[in-house]
């Protein structure tokens, strides 16, 4: 039952061949069996059971009620989307007791169509990271090649107080990271706990873990999905994004969430035309661009091969495939770092302990309270970015760094515009340099260095606002999933998804199957 796609699950719930209760219990069972992945920060099992019962009741009513698009479907939501009455911690001490009085628009729209929340997923603190290892709840483990042990499958997550960063899992064998910062959501979908999940994508935080965990990760065009209720990181780049097993599933979720929101002035006011993706896709008139700069230093052989094979596949099927240039690609990550730190320095200014969030005990003065609160509430990564951001924003540095980065941002954005204006429909690139690194390897470098490497192929997209999707391609020689990225044109999300679906149909990537866990008691 858990190997169904979202589309199939929705269908079976509708025609009554499975009940919401059965599905819900299966998902909870899998959630319990995969505790070691540390994918969830807060589990909402009671809400799940109540919602499932509600769905089954709707069916039994004598007067039929409207059967909603996602009726009875469990979803996971990254812990930086506000959910009324449910802790939204952003994996930080600063918000570890924050209970939002409102729900993020995208979550609300999923719920309005009958989906329910199975839990809030683990992440890097304030979504600053690319490994899902830098949160107060400890790192997320990639379910691929993970050796589950039956002895402590039911072991509860340790209380926050006992968890200190980066020494959470020390005793067991090394394992692969889930990628980040939305690693919990990626691991939850990959391990079958739910059929879709929300992540956020500022520089690749959804596509990166999607690639590492062998699932689809879709970042829509900036302005298509509301950011209302998403805790802001870099406002000019943040986009709610989603994880699913198939491109069709991503399309279904996107269609439920997309469109203008009065609570977010950066959502576009154009009327959103709902769509479904065709099954028979013709790519004969398609022009695929291969940006040569995406062969960057450090690209692994396996990923390179997968990229070449995909290019060949399109060409054999009749598409035009040409090499193109996005000349400013290599500077994009530097530009991203500067803009990220500057916006972070500004965004993090709201956390002072007075209105919400952690409050230190120091009552000597407002200033001392602020400083103590922020000292206790933020980890090193957050502090580093605030300090660097404020350095770049100093009067004497403003032009040299912040304005300079915004100028380079325009050049990056124009690179995309030029290539599309030349007739290219879609760009095909790797999502990441390699397959999922091991935890040991990853944590030997600091967060900033990792981000420079991990976000290389993903953050240029956020600079330009264009939509992009990571689709699982194949397994590497050592058995880990490889993701390829398709980059589309602004507001042509449907076209992007359609091409991604064609590719998915060709490669027939086999999802991770953890059904064997069901037989372990």
């Amino acid at each position, binding site marked *: 039952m858990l190997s169904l796609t979202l589309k199939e699950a929705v269908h079976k719930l509708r025609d009554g061949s499975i009940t919401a209760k059965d599905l819900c219990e299966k998902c909870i069972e899998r959630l319990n069996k995969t505790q070691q992945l540390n994918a969830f920060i807060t589990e909402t099992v009671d809400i799940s059971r109540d919602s499932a019962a509600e769905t089954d009741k709707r069916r039994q009513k004598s007067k039929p009620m409207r059967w909603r698009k996602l009726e009875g479907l469990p979803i996971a939501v990254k812990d930086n989307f506000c959910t009324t009455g449910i802790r939204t911690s952003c994996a930080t001490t600063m918000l570890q*007791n924050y209970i939002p*009085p409102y729900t993020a628009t995208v979550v609300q729209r999923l719920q309005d169509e009958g989906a329910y929340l199975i839990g809030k997923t683990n992440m890097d603190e304030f979504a600053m990271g690319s490994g899902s290892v830098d949160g107060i709840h400890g790192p997320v483990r990639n379910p691929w090649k993970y050796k589950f042990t039956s002895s402590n499958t039911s072991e509860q997550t340790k209380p926050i107080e006992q968890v200190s960063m980066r020494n959470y899992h020390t005793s067991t064998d090394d394992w692969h990271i889930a990628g980040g910062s939305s690693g919990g959501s990626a691991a939850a979908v990959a391990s079958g706990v739910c059929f879709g999940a929300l992540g956020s994508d500022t520089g690749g935080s959804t596509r990166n873990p999607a690639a590492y965990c062998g699932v689809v990760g879709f970042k829509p065009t900036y302005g298509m999905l509301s950011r209302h209720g998403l805790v802001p990181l870099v406002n*000019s780049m943040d986009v709610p994004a989603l994880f699913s097993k198939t491109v069709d599933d991503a399309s279904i979720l996107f269609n439920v969430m997309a469109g203008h929101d009065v609570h977010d002035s*950066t959502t*576009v006011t154009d009327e959103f035309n709902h769509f479904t993706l065709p099954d028979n896709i013709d790519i004969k008139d398609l022009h695929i661009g291969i940006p*040569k700069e995406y*062969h*960057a*230093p450090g690209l*692994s052989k396996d990923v390179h091969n997968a990229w*070449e094979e995909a290019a060949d596949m399109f060409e054999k099927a009749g598409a035009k495939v*040409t*090499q193109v240039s996005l000349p*400013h690609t*290599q*500077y994009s*990550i*530097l530009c991203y*770092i500067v803009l990220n730190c500057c916006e972070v*320095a500004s965004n993090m200014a709201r956390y*002072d302990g*007075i*209105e919400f969030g952690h409050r230190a005990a120091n*009552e*000597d*003065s407002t*200033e001392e309270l602020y*400083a103590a609160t*922020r*000292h206790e509430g*933020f980890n*090193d990564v957050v*502090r*580093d970015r605030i*300090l*660097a951001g*404020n*350095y*770049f924003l*100093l009067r004497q540095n403003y032009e040299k*760094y912040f*304005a300079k*980065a915004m*100028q*380079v*941002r*325009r*050049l990056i954005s124009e690179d995309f515009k030029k290539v599309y204006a030349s007739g290219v429909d879609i760009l095909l690139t790797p999502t990441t*340099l*390699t*397959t*999922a*690194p*091991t935890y040991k*390897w990853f944590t030997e470098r*600091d967060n*900033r260095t990792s981000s*420079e*490497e991990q976000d290389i192929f993903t953050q240029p997209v956020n*600079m330009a606002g264009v939509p992009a999707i990571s689709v699982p391609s194949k397994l590497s020689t050592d058995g880990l999933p490889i993701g390829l990225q398709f980059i589309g044109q602004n507001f042509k999300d449907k076209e992007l998804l359609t091409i991604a679906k064609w590719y998915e149909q060709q490669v027939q990537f086999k999802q991770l199957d953890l059904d064997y866990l069901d037989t372990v008691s």
Partner: protein
Amino acid sequence: MDACCSNVSLTCHHSISRSTMRPLEGKQARVPKTPIWEEVDHTRIPNVPQIDQEMINHLERVSLVEFNNQAGIERLSKAIESANKLHMVNTDGIEPMESVLEDRMLYLREDKVTDGKCKQEVLSNAVKTIEDYFVAPPGNIPLKTKERDYGSNSNGS
């Protein structure tokens, strides 16, 4: 694990050969065989300035967070070093880009109250409140100067 042996550096030392600059003909030529990154010309990059005690104090004051230790200052130096590479890019006459929606009009909504009566919700997450007010200790008192030593070499090397 191929990731383990990949040594990624933004300063790519692969020089660009003539052949990789042009589109290649033939099979699989669309995906380049070797990395295409430009070599960083260090003569065009400004030096990383020393992070002196005055700068440390200033940044900590405006940020209301502390460096904690010498490692924190070194990480700032590294971040500046990375950011300096942006000066490889010629941006003369380029308008800074603030938003990807810059070509769209920001709409105005009607000037009408659409929510309210949510006092309890607004106050619900504050640790301290008195009679529906947020509570802060006395203000406009400069932070106490602390004796800090981030190590013998606090000039960012």
